[in-house]
């Protein structure tokens, strides 16, 4: 079996310029630079930096360079021009709202350094490669010997000899290895201090005068770790995600928007996925993943229904609730309340079973809803309704 390294956990991606701030805070050398939201601001930063600068789109997507989101500018006017082209640009469906303007560096060589939490070994794992500047998964596929993986025992943290071993794999020149040892050590410090699930420097460059520097930075933060680090929550770029997902997060719902037309509202992540799969099985396409969680709070049901109904693609909405801790009557009350206060256009079909099932059926019947007890039936019916709409 191929050794697969998986990033574990829900996570918050932050922008390159934010990641570089975290790096700078622990002492990792990064080029001077600032973020701009207007072309004039970009020109001012370029002026202040002097010399050649790089204007880089700040979006949560790879391949910015290929998409024309990264440009060199030799003077402030050119930086303004590039910024005006890049701001507002769409990259992989995401609109660019910010550019990072940094001093350009003369690059002698490019390497890769990354650390993430590996679920198989349940520990942080470093991956480094002297082949930097390109996608590390590509290097892994085409030239696996060019990557060194090193697991960090969480009881000891990254030990000095391990940091040196990583650096020694990157550079045969002892002066460069010494700098890289320090950078790797600091990267691990930033990784743990900010509860990251992933932190990456790509490329880590050697400049013309032999300095090792982080040119691009990518960091994902473990959402569970954010609780203890409220300062990091401010790094979240709400503009970079669909509005429905922002609303879901605020309502404490697990939600992922998809492209289909059958809206799904389920309690429990596994059951929610199985419900989506069943939609597909019966010939439909799910419009979303949504888990209302274990709570019986009717407010959550209301918020869930509103989020699903606000998607114009949705042609039918299905509820699939297995009452264990969640009480079916609470969910039923939430559905009735939501449809009373908000206009929900698509038809709603409901399956409820388990705790307080009988009371729930009564509530729904009184409000004019009919309900199923089998999962297959409700999904088949929802797909049919969506197809007919």
């Amino acid at each position, binding site marked *: *079996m191929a050794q*697969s*390294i*998986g*990033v*574990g*956990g*829900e*996570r918050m991606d932050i922008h390159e310029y934010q990641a570089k701030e975290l790096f700078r805070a622990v002492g990792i050398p990064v080029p001077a630079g600032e973020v701009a939201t207007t072309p004039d601001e970009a020109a001012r930063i370029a002026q202040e930096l002097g010399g050649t600068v790089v204007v880089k789109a700040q979006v949560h997507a790879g391949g910015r360079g290929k998409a024309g989101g990264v440009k060199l500018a030799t003077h402030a006017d050119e930086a303004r021009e590039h910024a005006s082209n890049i701001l507002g640009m769409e990259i992989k469906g995401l609109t660019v709202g910010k550019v990072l303007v940094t001093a350009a560096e003369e690059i002698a060589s490019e390497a890769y350094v990354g650390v993430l*939490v590996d*679920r*198989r070994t*349940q*520990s*942080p794992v470093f991956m480094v490669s002297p082949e930097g500047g390109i996608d590390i*998964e590509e290097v892994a596929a085409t030239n696996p010997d060019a990557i060194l993986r090193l697991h960090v*025992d*969480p*009881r000891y943290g990254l030990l000095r000899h391990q940091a040196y071993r990583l650096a020694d794999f990157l550079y045969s020149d002892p002066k460069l290895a010494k700098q890289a040892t320090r950078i790797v050590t600091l990267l691990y410090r930033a990784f*743990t201090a900010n*509860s990251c*699930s992933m932190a990456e420097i790509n490329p880590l460059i050697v400049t013309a005068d032999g300095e090792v520097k982080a040119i691009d930075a990518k960091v994902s933060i*473990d*959402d*569970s*770790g954010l*609780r*203890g680090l409220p300062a990091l929550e401010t790094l979240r770029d709400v503009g970079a995600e669909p509005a429905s997902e922002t609303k879901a997060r605020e309502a404490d719902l*697990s939600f*992922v928007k*998809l492209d289909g037309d059958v809206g799904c509202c*389920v309690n*429990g*992540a*596994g*059951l*929610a*996925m*199985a419900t*989506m*799969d*069943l*939609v*597909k*099985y019966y010939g439909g396409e*799910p419009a979303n*993943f949504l*888990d209302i969680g*274990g709570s019986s709070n009717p407010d959550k049901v209301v918020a869930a229904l509103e989020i699903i109904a606000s998607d114009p693609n949705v042609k039918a909405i299905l509820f699939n609730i*297995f*009452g*264990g*801790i*969640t009480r079916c009557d609470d969910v039923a009350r939430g559905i009735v309340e939501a449809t009373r206060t908000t206009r929900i256009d698509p038809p709603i079909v409901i399956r409820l*079973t*388990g*705790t307080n099932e009988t009371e729930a059926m009564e509530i729904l019947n009184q409000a004019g809803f009919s309900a199923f007890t*089998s*999962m*297959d039936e409700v999904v088949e019916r929802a797909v049919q309704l969506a197809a007919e709409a």
Partner: protein
Amino acid sequence: MAVFIDTETRLVVQGITGRDGSFHTLQMAESGTRVVAGVTPGKGGQVFEIENGGRVPIFNTVDRAVKETGANTSVIYVPPAFAAGAIMEAADAGIAFIVAITEGIPVLEMSKANAFVRDRGSRLLGPNCPGLISPGKAKVGIIPAQITTPGPVGVVSRSGTLTYEAVDQLTRAGIGQTTCIGIGGDPIIGTNFIDCLSAFRDDRDTEAIVMIGEIGGTDEQEAATWAKENLGKPVVGFIAGQTAPPGRRMGHAGAIISGSSGTAEEKIRSFKDNGVAVATRPVEITDLIKESLGI
């Protein structure tokens, strides 16, 4: 017989005075579990009353609870910021089996807590799991006891309600369970599929096993490979998340396809290659189990 918990289980509830802890303590006691102690720092000396007139003593520390009551199993209902610490406290006090229900423990904290549990020779189930139930014997966690019944099937799953769905169907079809185990939806958990399959193998009452997986990671694939070589009992498998997009977390922190790894297709293929009967829909699980039991 049953696995991990049975009538010998002596349970301490960590976070017994909290909203979830108190509610589920009553439920667990009602299912026949011997709840011998509760722990809430600062509330030592108080008593938690359970419905049949039982009185559960509360202690400040798990250490004291173990010394005073001989507790051997713990269940954790404390908030995520304190849950990794609670797991380590239980292991440090010599608790052999620890069940962590709490969702949202930072992954780096779990990485350390899990190492601690292993160093102390304890077993952790979870976190972010519904716990487990050995019907008619003991329940630790939040699985609704009324959908279970004693019988010959072992159930192990990364999910909560999807497990209830499967177990409910089994029970309605008259097929009981030895133990139903939710191993949890987090990327770093204490007890994995292989651990459970191995326990079911050694349990002479378990005749067939339901294994419910989902996208993310390689735990199911490794379990299937292991089962082929080592199990010697029939397994019916189901994988949720065939329609999940890559790179997005599907509710569970661990339910995420990284790159091209951890897809439902990959897991289903591994099941089939290793002799695990695959249910396409949840409803098929019961049919396949009937087949495997020859009923």
